[in-house]
């Protein structure tokens, strides 16, 4: 199955081609949906097969390469279309195809009756193809191909309903914003690639990483490379300062938000940092920057999430916040903990988004949680699964989020320090609070919509079964990474599985420091207590005493409006970056440089040629004899010249 891994990558492309080219002819939603999700389903089975085959191999033979063809070969640059099947890429591939398949099935129900049903599935398949290239690539160039491909699909899918209004403008403007912001990050990625090639003379992961350890390259080069790579990661994974596109990306259909903007694409940055962990390990300063950005993003996004009313906006800020946790883990050198959280987050955040989609479906496109309430009795399955996901993201044991988040918090305490842990725990408390604010406002209390006009209903089986599957994964997914203090000698099996990938990076970092089990239990207890406190607080405020929320808003008007307006980051970017660029482009580049100078050059050239021609064409009289005269004079001159030069 390892040799067949290319099929897992190319089947989605086939699905894209079939649905994309013949979609308008097929028309039948069942066939289109079957092709779209079937392609991903088979991919998933192949990846599962490859996983078990790899599992059966001895630990030191678990990295395999599948070479398809040489892509480009110029001088010492030799880039192959080759896939690297190892522990890390398999975990990612399982998440992408597994969660991707579930979301595809859900989409058949969710997109039912859409006029461009076929286009939706074509784009989704194209996305999976690009994402698989990103994670399976064995070199930076192929990874970059996937990296750009997922960006393109993200753009196409955010603007899927391109004729629909979104906030102040349109969904296609939101897609454009995502694309442009990502482009800033991509420049960083590209520059980093150039530097890597310059110093390591290769773009293949395995060669670069072995040379990074053996060659004597100065430390500031590593810092520059990793910082540039991290710029790319902040763009793709929506970290400060390039996070602004993700909330707007909610303009797309909800399954897209679940697949691309929660479970898979936005984690590409985290994956890339984990993949290049060796380089990061050589640059401790960058590690610190990654950790600071990560923890700050986690905190900052969580505060915004506290006050938002759009159900998808809350989830979007929650995603940014959880991605911040993953980068905190990366910065702390706890790479496998970060990947673990990536995986559990894919489960419960996809579930939250799909649940939100189910609710939006039932409430006729209403997304404001202030107009929900009491949905518990109308949609029991959505309610139950949403509750599981909310518990998981809040870090309540034994749901999956508890294990992954707690591991990150523990490593941030041991490897970075108390302050990082404290901010992390505060974020966890806020996470529990806003998640359960969302939960209580949606499912509990009295309905705040007109029950005579809106009849909420449970979604069809095609949508609820995926919810149940994801709920099971969110509930028990954490058990594969039970921390050592619970499992004893057996150790953390997820960590053991990934450890060969991160061994060389962790050797470089080598955090020493004795920490007792008592400390670990204590910190764990504090974070769980904090999460429970957040939940109880939300329950008290939004069920028992709604007046508290209103009064708090009134009392802290300034803080509330700042949070409500997302710290005015968009406005600040508009004023400091976008407007100056747009204005100077318009007044100088367009009206001055383009209109006057470029156009002037071209027009001037044409005019001067015309002027000269109008002089010269006077010679063209049409009288044969004048031509003959000129010819004769020419021959005479030539003759004289020949005779004189003899």
């Amino acid at each position, binding site marked *: 199955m390892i040799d067949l891994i290319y099929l897992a990558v190319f089947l989605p492309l086939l699905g894209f081609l079939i649905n994309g080219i013949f979609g308008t002819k097929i028309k039948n939603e069942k066939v289109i949906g079957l092709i779209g999700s079937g392609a991903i389903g088979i991919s998933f089975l192949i990846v599962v097969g490859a996983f078990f085959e790899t599992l059966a191999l001895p630990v030191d033979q678990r990295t395999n390469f599948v070479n398809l063809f040489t892509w480009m070969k110029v001088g010492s640059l030799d880039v192959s279309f080759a896939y690297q099947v190892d522990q890390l890429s398999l975990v990612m591939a399982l998440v992408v195809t597994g969660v991707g398949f579930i979301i595809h099935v859900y989409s058949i129900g969710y997109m039912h009756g859409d006029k461009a049903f076929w286009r939706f599935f074509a784009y989704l398949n194209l996305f999976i193809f690009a994402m698989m290239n990103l994670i399976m690539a064995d070199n930076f160039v192929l990874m970059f191909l996937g990296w750009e491909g997922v960006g393109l699909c993200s753009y196409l899918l955010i603007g899927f309903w391109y004729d629909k209004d979104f906030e102040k403008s349109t969904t296609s403007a939101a897609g454009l914003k995502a694309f442009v912001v990502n482009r800033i990050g991509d420049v960083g990625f590209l520059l980093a690639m150039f530097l890597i090639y310059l110093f390591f003379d290769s773009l293949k992961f395995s060669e670069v990483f072995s040379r990074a350890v053996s060659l004597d390259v100065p430390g500031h080069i590593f810092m520059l490379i990793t910082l540039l790579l991290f710029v790319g990661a902040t763009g793709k994974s929506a970290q400060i300062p390039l996070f602004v596109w993700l909330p707007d990306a909610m303009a797309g259909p909800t399954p897209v938000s679940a697949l691309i903007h929660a479970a898979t694409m936005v984690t590409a940055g985290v994956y890339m940092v984990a993949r290049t962990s060796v380089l990061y390990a050589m640059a401790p300063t960058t590690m610190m920057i990654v950790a600071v950005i990560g923890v700050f993003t986690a905190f900052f996004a969580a505060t915004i999430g506290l006050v938002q009313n759009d159900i998808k906006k809350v989830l979007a800020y929650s995603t940014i916040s959880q991605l911040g946790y993953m980068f905190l883990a990366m910065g702390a050198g706890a790479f496998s903990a970060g990947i673990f959280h990536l995986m559990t987050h894919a489960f419960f955040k996809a579930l939250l988004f799909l649940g939100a989609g189910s609710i939006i479906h039932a409430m006729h496109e209403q997304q404001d949680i202030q107009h929900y309430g009491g949905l518990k009795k109308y949609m029991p399955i959505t309610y139950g699964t949403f509750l599981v996901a909310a518990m998981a993201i809040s870090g309540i044991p034994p749901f999956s989020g508890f294990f992954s988040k707690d591991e990150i918090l523990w490593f941030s305490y041991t490897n970075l320090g108390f302050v990082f842990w404290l901010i992390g725990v505060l974020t966890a408390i806020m996470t529990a609070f806003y998640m359960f604010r969302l939960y209580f406002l949606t499912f509990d209390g009295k309905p705040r919509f007109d029950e005579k006009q809106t009849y909420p209903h449970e979604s069809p089986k095609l949508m609820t079964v995926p919810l149940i599957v994801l709920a099971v994964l969110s509930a028990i997914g954490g058990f594969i990474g039970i921390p050592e203090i619970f499992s004893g000698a057996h150790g953390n099996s997820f960590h053991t599985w990934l450890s060969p990938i991160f061994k060389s990076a962790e050797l470089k970092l080598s955090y020493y420091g004795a920490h007792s089990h008592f400390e670990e239990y204590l910190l764990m207890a504090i974070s769980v207590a904090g999460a429970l406190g957040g939940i109880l607080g939300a329950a008290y405020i939004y069920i028992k005493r709604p007046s508290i929320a209103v009064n708090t808003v009134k009392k802290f008007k300034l803080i509330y409006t700042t949070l409500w307006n997302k710290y005015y980051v968009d406005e600040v970017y508009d004023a400091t970056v976008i407007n100056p660029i747009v204005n100077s482009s318009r007044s100088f580049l367009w009206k001055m440089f383009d209109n006057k100078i470029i156009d002037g050059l071209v027009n001037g050239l044409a005019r001067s040629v015309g002027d000269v021609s109008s002089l010269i*064409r006077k010679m*063209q*009289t*049409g*009288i*044969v*004899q004048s031509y*003959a005269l000129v010819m*004769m004079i020419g021959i005479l001159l030539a003759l004289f010249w020949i005779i004189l030069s003899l």
Partner: protein
Amino acid sequence: MQIQIEYYLILSAALFITGVVGVLIRRNAIIVFMSIELMLNSANLTLVTFSSYLGNSIGQIFVFFVMAVAAAEAAIGLAIIIALFRNKLTVNLDEINIFKW
């Protein structure tokens, strides 16, 4: 008594100049055409002269070629002039100046 080569060459040059002047200054297309023939024949004369002077027959053979080509050219040229005359009812070169800007 042998006629010296200079006489032939001078005659040939005189014929050629007559032809050139005729091409340049006459207005009737047929006369211009005849002047061209004159130039060709002056060249033929020169070739024959040198052939005899050098005792080499190549020049004379070449003249046959020139005459053959001149015959072909005369046929085409006259055809063009007739076609022109049918269109413009004139063979006056001054009035045939449609190929201009």
